[in-house]
């Protein structure tokens, strides 16, 4: 009894306890805003894919070097290493987006590897030291350095970027390739477990579909199995633009084939597929102008399959439905989303192409079933910039929009602030985004998209999340 008041004195923290910044949960809706996390890593063995027009690049490694330790994430690696395709090593780069987001790393353009920036005020972790703006460590020999580094004559761990072994120290080092060019198109995500199906184009006019899985929540994917899960027949040159949906225990894979949109079924989680002999959707409407492709699929609660597709080479997004997942009908002779429907006089205008849909079934808090639709469109989303007193008009580019339907995909309401994902650089340059695919991962939505620079040169797959980390 006597001690009760004393205990009361000991409980309170009197404002000193503190609390983390931005406590509280952010709600994910999958609509907007999307935060770009940079390039998606798709590994094939120990290398990952880079932009299609890039060269194979790697890092000079001493021939006596031990292989890097195996890893699932950067956290398992040392200070300057990243987890690259399951192995800890310093990572090559030629742009900051390739070094990930939110991990404090930036591309050191002097050495073309991802590093931790530092300054007199911003120190380095552990025993690392700051050398010309990036962290490194002192060394006496190569083994004092981290995987992918060598010890320089000035006793600093350095990395040497290379294309071939001839660029490394002859007889002592080899060029270990980290990144190969890869033309990856139209990714399709499937959740639970998180799988990626993507079109890989070995040559310009050929295409095949590969499957990849992720062990780190979608930051990186590894191709598994090694062989394509769907490849063109001898008479075909390309199968591509996959879309995937789960119907019961079966995976439905829709894809572009020469005569329309084909279908394949898998009962082993997408490792193998049984392809239908004929397309399930053909271009038979006037607005489609003989072209259908880039499918996006969703399965409703009653197992009805909604197959959205791009028609007429960007003329709009059409819908085909199927009760049994095999035979599809088109409920309307018009597209469900077209340029007029998504145009806004201020926010998104001069739209001349709409397509590449990705769809998901959605349930709102009162249990109403709806359909979320992400798509790419080509238009203008910003005003003119003022440069040295001169007005410079914006340039049309591909961006990603969002729309939702509460009537089983028959009609869509566009998001009022489209586009929902549009990257800008240096105040005025709009990079391009297309071929979105979206899946829930944990308490967030993950988007993979096909990226391109303002001039339209493909830069590979990118990742964005909603809400921001």
């Amino acid at each position, binding site marked *: *009894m*006597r001690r*009760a*008041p004393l205990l*009361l*004195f000991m*409980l*309170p*923290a*009197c*404002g*000193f*306890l*503190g*609390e983390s910044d*931005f*406590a*509280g*949960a*952010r*709600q994910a*809706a999958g*609509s907007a805003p999307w935060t770009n996390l940079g390039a998606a890593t798709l590994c094939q063995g120990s290398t990952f894919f880079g932009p299609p027009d890039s060269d194979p690049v790697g890092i000079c490694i001493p021939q006596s070097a031990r292989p890097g330790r195996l890893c699932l994430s950067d956290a398992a690696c040392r200070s300057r290493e990243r987890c690259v395709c399951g192995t800890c090593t310093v990572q090559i780069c030629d742009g900051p987006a390739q070094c990930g987001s939110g991990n404090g790393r930036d591309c050191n353009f002097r050495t073309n590897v991802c590093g931790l920036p530092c300054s007199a005020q911003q120190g380095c972790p552990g025993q690392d030291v700051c050398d010309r703006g990036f962290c490194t460590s002192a060394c006496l020999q190569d083994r004092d350095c981290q995987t992918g580094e060598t010890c320089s004559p000035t006793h600093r761990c350095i990395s040497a970027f290379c294309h071939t072994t001839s660029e490394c120290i002859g007889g002592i080092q080899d060029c270990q390739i980290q990144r190969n060019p890869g033309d990856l198109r139209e990714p399709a995500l499937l959740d639970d477990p998180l799988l990626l199906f993507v079109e890989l184009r070995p040559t310009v006019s050929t295409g095949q579909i590969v499957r990849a899985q992720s062990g780190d929540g979608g930051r990186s994917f590894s191709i598994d199995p090694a062989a394509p899960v769907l490849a063109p027949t001898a008479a075909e040159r390309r199968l591509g633009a996959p879309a995937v949906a789960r119907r019961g225990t079966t995976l439905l894979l829709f894809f572009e084939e020469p005569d329309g949109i084909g279908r394949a079924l898998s009962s082993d989680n997408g490792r193998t597929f049984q392809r239908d002999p004929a397309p399930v959707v053909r271009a038979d409407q006037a607005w489609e102008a003989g072209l259908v492709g880039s499918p996006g699929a969703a399965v409703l609660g009653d197992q009805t399959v909604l197959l959205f597709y791009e028609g007429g080479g960007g003329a709009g997004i059409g819908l085909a439905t199927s009760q049994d997942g095999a035979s599809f009908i088109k409920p309307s002779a018009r597209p469900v989303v077209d340029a007029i429907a998504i145009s806004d006089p201020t*926010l998104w205008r001069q739209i001349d192409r709409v397509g590449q849909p990705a769809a998901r079934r959605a349930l*709102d*808090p*009162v249990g109403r079933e*709806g359909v979320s639709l992400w798509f790419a469109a080509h238009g203008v989303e*910003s*005003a*003119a*910039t*003022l*440069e*040295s*007193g001169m007005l410079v008009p*914006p340039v049309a580019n591909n961006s990603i929009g*969002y*729309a*939702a*339907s*509460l009537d089983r995909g028959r009609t869509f*309401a*566009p*998001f*009022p602030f489209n586009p929902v994902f549009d990257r*800008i650089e*240096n*105040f*005025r340059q709009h990079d391009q985004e297309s071929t979105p695919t979206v899946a829930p991962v944990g*308490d967030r939505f993950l988007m993979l998209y096909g990226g391109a620079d303002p001039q339209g040169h493909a830069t590979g797959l990118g990742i964005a999340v909603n*809400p921001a980390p």
Partner: protein
Amino acid sequence: MRIPLCALCVLCGFSNVLADPLDTFGFDARGKAMGNAMTAGTSGIGSAFYNPAGAALAPAPEIGLGYSYAAMLLSINDRDARVSSSRGLSLGAALPSRCGSACTFAVGLAFYLPDQFIARIQTIPVSEPRFVLLDNDVDRIVINPTLALRLGPIAVGAGVTLFSDAAGNGIDFTVGGRGGMQVGEAKLDVALPSRAAPLLGLLWTPRTDLRVGASFRGQLDLRLRLDIIAHVDIPGGGDTVISIRALNFYTPRKLSLGVAWDPTDRITLAADASYYNWADFSGGVPDLRVLVDLQIAPALLQGTFPADRLHDTMTLRAGGEWRRALAPDRMAALRAGLAYEPSPVPDQVLLTSLADNDRFVVSLGAGLQLARIAGFLDKPLALDAALEWHALIGRTAQKLDPALPSFSSAGSIVHLALTATASF
């Protein structure tokens, strides 16, 4: 040629709004256990919060120290909203001084200090669902100093509830070249200007077993005003201004009427009605402006989103206390209370996503009053405990535009409070 400040972006998130934490949970454990129906029933350490006039009715100087903890079991879309728990120290005082046979002058103080910080200024993007009344704002300091005067059956009280803004002349940062080197200099002028709202109270004791009370509190809020100006004084450079304006902790005007009746020596019954003037709340959408005056002025979107108008609410509270003497120098009390607190937040059918729910509050409590503790304390000591359960009535916000995400909110709050009150 120096281009004009031409690029402007406005917006935007939504500041949290709320009456102070004592409005949500009450002040001392006795008041909380009685459903906070204390406008007429207070006479001691809780007076500076419930009714400033009550301090003049304290029989002797009293100081009370309490601690409270609230588990915020709230969810949005059936997922934990991770609302931080509200917990902190409360200190109350009623210091009466006689000025005649029927005259008492008193000083009162109600003070609440959260464990984590004194206050937190937080804004959330306008479209993100968030418990606008229960997230964050139940965690702020409350300081209510009051004065009271009793003349016969009438007691009056007045005071202020104090808070502060976060403002100043801003932060000025200059980057330039000097002697061929890039150099920077900065200066800063930030203040917490004090804010105050009036507290008024009246207590009438027509009979020894009956008291009627009224109290009024003015409106109060915290305004954040922070300007960061960066001058880049190198060729091609210019100015960048980041200007933040936000409003937090809106505490509406409150008018309470109450009655307390002692039907027997052992029983006290009390009832309150409190009117909250939420409709006067404006400026809930803070803004952040970024002005870039460089060789390139980006085309930034500008928009303003009017906040949803909150509506006034009426909260009803009732409580009772049953006392029993355990021994000549100790007495026990059991207490219970009930309240209904409607939400001032309208249906969220447009862009804003303010989560808030009507609440039923059920409270229970017990107290032990000791005339003295032999060998330790020569004056009375009261120990009280209270448990409040806030049941949020589930609510769904269904947007008119299907492309805007709808959301649901629900949950409950469990609040535990302990108070020790010593007389001097």
